């Protein structure tokens, strides 16, 4: 009976993993196929006619190298900048007292209730007025000091003993010096977790890049993949090759830093 239970458990888990992995296998497989083989019956898992030509064509006929650079540049800039401002903001809320602090914190929490996509129309018009359409600014600047990041860092910093900060203050360090020399080194694990969340969100972002980036030279990977789709004909072979490239960086990061991904998810949940 016990062994049967174990068997059923492994069976269900294995089936789930197969279903989970299958789309990835399908994506990779299709990226090495000719378009005619993608649309042939019965479908093949291992390509009959294995070739790298989709990848070569993607780089030869489209500015795909430039698109990879754009995605990377935006994600790295947004992540670094957001980490700085969110840690600073979290420090401000965790370790300082100031006028209307509680009310201001409540505003910060409440701002998370408004879905960012819901204001896409007026926000686009704002970007248009200040000349930010078709630039990277809308994808980096508005999220620099975001409510989630500040809240996350504040929660983490409340456990830092005040005596540490007091000691540095007696030594004559300014508040910003204390932030750089004492706080930042202590919160490194939280920075890793938050950094992964920011990078992932930026790398995979779609709605705003789609709205803002109009020139193909400026587009990020997800947007350029969408634009390959034509009205009559969609080159799935090229889209799959681009898709494989787009998922590689996060897969690699995930392999080495899995625990930070997990702690990012559970950070909000365990409190409940």
């Amino acid at each position, binding site marked *: 009976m016990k062994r049967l239970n174990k068997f059923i*458990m492994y069976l269900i*888990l294995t089936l*789930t*993993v197969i279903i989970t992995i299958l*789309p*990835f296998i*399908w994506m990779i497989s*299709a990226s090495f196929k000719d378009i005619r083989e*993608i*649309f042939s*019956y*019965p479908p093949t898992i291992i390509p009959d006619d294995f070739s790298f030509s989709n990848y070569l064509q993607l780089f030869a006929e489209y500015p795909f190298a430039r698109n990879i650079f754009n995605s990377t540049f935006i994600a790295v800039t947004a992540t670094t900048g957001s980490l700085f*401002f969110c840690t600073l*903001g979290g*420090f*401000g*809320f965790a*370790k*300082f*007292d*100031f*006028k209307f602090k509680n009310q*201001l914190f409540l*505003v910060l929490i409440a701002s998370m*209730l*408004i879905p960012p*996509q*819901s*204001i896409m*129309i*007026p*926000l*686009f*018009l704002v970007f248009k007025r200040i000349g930010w359409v078709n630039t990277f600014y809308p994808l980096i*600047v*508005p*999220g*620099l*000091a975001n*409510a989630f990041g*500040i809240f996350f860092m504040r929660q983490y910093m409340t456990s830092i003993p005040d005596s540490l900060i007091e000691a540095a203050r007696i030594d004559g360090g300014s508040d*910003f010096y204390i932030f750089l020399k004492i706080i930042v080194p202590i919160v490194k694990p939280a920075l890793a977790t938050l950094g992964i969340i920011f990078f*992932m969100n930026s790398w*995979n972002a*779609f*709605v705003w890049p789609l709205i803002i980036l109009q020139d193909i030279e400026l587009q990020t*990977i*997800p947007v350029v993949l*969408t634009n390959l789709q034509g009205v009559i004909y969609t080159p*799935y072979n090229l889209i*799959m090759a681009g898709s*494989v490239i787009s998922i590689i960086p996060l897969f690699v990061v*995930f392999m080495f830093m*899995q625990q930070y*991904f*997990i702690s990012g*998810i559970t950070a909000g*949940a*365990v409190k*409940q």
Partner: protein
Amino acid sequence: MMKKNKSGLIFTSPFYILFLTFMVYPILFSFYLSFNKWNGVGEMEWVGLANYINLFRDDLVWKSMFNALFFFFTYVPVMLFLALVLAVFLNSNIKGRGFFRAAVYLPNITSLVAVAFTFQLLLDKNYGLLNMFLSYLGISSINWLGTPLGARLSIDMLMIWRWLGYNTIILLAGLQSIPEEMYEAAIIDGASKVQSFFRITVPLMKPVLLFTLVLSTIGTFRMFTEVFILTGGGPANSTLTPVVHLYNTGFNWFKFGYASSITYLIILITLILSMVQMKLLNEKEVKS
């Protein structure tokens, strides 16, 4: 002791500057805009409440709300049930827990655009993998993306596939916080595995389950990319979601005034949902 000086205010001010510029101002601006007719380039024309009146007459608004509800009531129960089962399995003494956990979480870190295009291939009526498997079971080919019900179920499948692992990890963290002694005591009292699941696990997991439910509600009302790529909202608007309708109204039809009234409707519904859920969460916290 906390220091009282300007530093705290200075350190937190970037958020408020960005919040005022890129959230408060656009929301106020769209309030004004929602009383106007504007295509984005010409003159604005004051139309009073006309946009809000049209909102109630617009079948697509109600259809998109209905679709969101349909998605919510179909994929969320299935997903949370499966996630709870997986979490219970992963919480028991099994080998390779780390591997299973990592594998089911993988879909969540992948670009939704890449995944949605892959699902188009998997769900293809003639050449898709899913219909091939179904044909082995003797089920004739289903037009997943070309029929209203098929397209809705396709979105459900994509949502479950992408979010199952994420919810499993949250529920697993919840399970790990239940003390082992409670189960041991139940075994001594002669309770079976199934009994202790329903008498101990489920009640103690209620707050965590509620938390995942809240996340899913928010997620469902924000759905955009899944639909935009996989079905484009079709066929016959059967998978149109509120945010996709908002996008179309603004960026395809250039009705910025009317789109602003949709913006307000979405914000209003989200706020009501959030308040109901916060109340639920707080009540549970008091009780537990």
